[in-house]
């Protein structure tokens, strides 16, 4: 598959602060790439370098085969960008805004069609300063599509939005992917990445700490799967003594960690054989969010510990 974005050893310094510290990754044409990280991790700096809005301090960046800083004008004809907290001229309506961008890009978008795509038709004639946060983001999305972009950059597009507005934006992102466009998405909503992304990279303190498909990251960094049921602590004791697996009991909940697929059958047989009461049997798998919280937490704990030791 062709490459849309190629980043090699990218770094960005603001005075003594190293916001991005030698990161590398590749985004293929047509995939949704989620760039995750806590606040201040270096997400926005990275995406702004990719968009040609900031100059990198070191490393190399190529977007659609162009250098974003020196070829910004040509690049901007081919990409669409929605920044965090999209702002526009206060007295201008969404319909006028789409016409304006259409004239600037010399494209002839149908404002009504484009606004209906982002579910903003009912506000087409309302001034920007009367729109809600979600409606403003939707307009940002519509404007990012006026030039029919090959690659879309969405920087935390759903931050602060209610669940309905968030899902509306997700639908648009899925449509973009189905149309063959590449989507570079930064977010700190892990669920968003898990639902939408083909590939994920997690950045923390300017470095990538995990990368791959959501499943690959969960497999590589998550805990093993678990069987969970409601049962008295006596059952936990019983299983621990017979199976040689890690069994955790808390209140009336028992979790048994599975090392191999066949362990599940052994656990169920042992539970049945115990004659003790049990109910609500479920399997539990780490989510991307569990992995993210653990990875980021471990790094921060490690940093605190080495600071204390030092």
């Amino acid at each position, binding site marked *: 598959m062709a490459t849309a974005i190629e980043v090699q050893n990218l770094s960005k310094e603001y005075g003594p602060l190293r916001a991005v510290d030698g990161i590398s990754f590749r985004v293929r044409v047509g995939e949704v790439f989620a760039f995750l990280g806590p606040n201040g991790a270096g997400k926005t700096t990275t995406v702004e370098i990719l968009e040609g809005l900031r100059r990198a301090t070191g490393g190399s960046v190529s977007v659609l085969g162009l250098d974003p800083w020196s070829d910004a004008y040509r690049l*901007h004809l081919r990409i669409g960008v929605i920044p965090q907290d999209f702002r*526009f*001229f206060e*007295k*201008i309506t969404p319909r006028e805004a789409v016409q*304006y961008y259409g*004239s*600037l890009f010399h494209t002839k978008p149908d404002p009504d069609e484009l606004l209906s795509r982002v579910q903003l038709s009912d506000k087409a004639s309302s001034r920007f300063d009367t729109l809600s946060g979600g409606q403003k983001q939707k307009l940002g999305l519509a404007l990012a599509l006026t030039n029919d972009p090959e690659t879309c950059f969405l920087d935390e597009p759903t931050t602060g939005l209610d669940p309905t507005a968030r899902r509306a934006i997700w639908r648009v992102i899925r449509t973009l992917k189905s149309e063959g466009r590449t989507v570079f998405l930064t977010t700190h909503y892990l669920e968003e990445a898990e639902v939408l992304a083909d590939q994920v990279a997690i950045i923390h303190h300017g470095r990538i700490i995990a990368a791959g498909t959501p499943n690959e990251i969960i497999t590589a960094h998550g805990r093993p799967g678990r069987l969970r049921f409601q049962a008295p602590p006596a059952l936990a004791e019983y299983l621990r003594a017979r199976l040689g697996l890690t069994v955790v009991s808390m209140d009336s909940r028992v979790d048994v960690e599975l090392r191999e697929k066949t362990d599940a059958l052994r656990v169920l047989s042992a539970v049945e054989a115990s004659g003790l009461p049990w109910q609500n049997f479920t399997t539990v798998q780490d989510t991307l969010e569990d992995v993210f919280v653990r990875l980021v937490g471990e790094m921060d704990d490690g940093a605190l510990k080495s600071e204390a030791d030092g």
Partner: protein
Amino acid sequence: MRLGRITADLKIVVRSYLRNPVALFFSLIFPIILIGLFGLIFSATGNSAVPLTVLNLDHNSPVSVQYLAELNNTTFVKVQVVNWNASGFASQLGRNGDPVGLVIPSGFEASYLAHRPVNVTVYTNLADAASSGEVLGAVQGVSSFFNLHASNGSAIIGITQQHVGSQVYTYIDYLIPGLIGFSILTSPMFSMVDIAASYRKEGIFRELSLTPLTRSEWLTSHILWYVALTFVTAGIMIGAGVELFGAHVTISLGLVPFLIAGPLLFVSLGMLAGSVAKTPESAALIGNIITFPMMFLSGTFFQVSLFPPALQSFAHILPLYYVIDGMDQVMLFANTTRALFDVLGVFAAAIVVFLLAVRFFKWRDE
């Protein structure tokens, strides 16, 4: 530069402006208020006669009454006869706040008819030199006329009054080019400084940088709008000045280059000031430091020729001085050569500042 993009951006600028009531007030209503206010203040002092309080101790003799009638006829003073006590006249004037007084002594008519010297007394107020001067002049003039008449003489040297320029100019005539200049300066300067700083803070320049619109196209659309606005404002000011105060100004094509070069200069200067500032607050400060001296010292409200020499030299380095002086030459004195010199200077400054503004005004950060 592409005309299509400039036109598209111009539409956004115009819509934003026309939908902003504060901006509309300052461009359409404020000029009328300015003309009205200054017109009223200065046309009032120009036309009114100085009130002259008179104590006639000659018991309204025919000669004294005629003398006072002649004083009134000068139109410089308006005689008000009182019946105060002669000894307390000066202090009574002070208590009443009357600026000037005149006492005609007892026996004034008898002395005059007998050709014996007689003095009238004029009370002046040092704090109101202008009124005192006018009254003294009027009293001296009327007294000389009576003296000449008494000795059966006739005037040898007469006076014909002429005014500066080709016709009679009043303060309002000078005020119109001054206030058009005021508006050419303040309207774009204040808006552009604010736009430069706030669009950067809100990320709107960042949005625009992701489109094919260039900085010079963006600046050009704003210049075009302020040129159009300047034509409207100038029209309103000239109309209000002529209709309300009977101003005499010449409206000719010679005015057009100033109404273009002025906004070109000050839109660019506002953008430059807003671009070099780091925050909206410091941008406003820089804007005010540039705007205020120019607002008062370029001949907007008062003629630069009335300033002390040092201030006149300072005025000559302010670009607005050449805008206003040029419009004075076109609208009042029909002095094409000097107007041409002024407009070329303003255009040269405008082009330099425009290029500097494009150079320093950044869409994106390093």
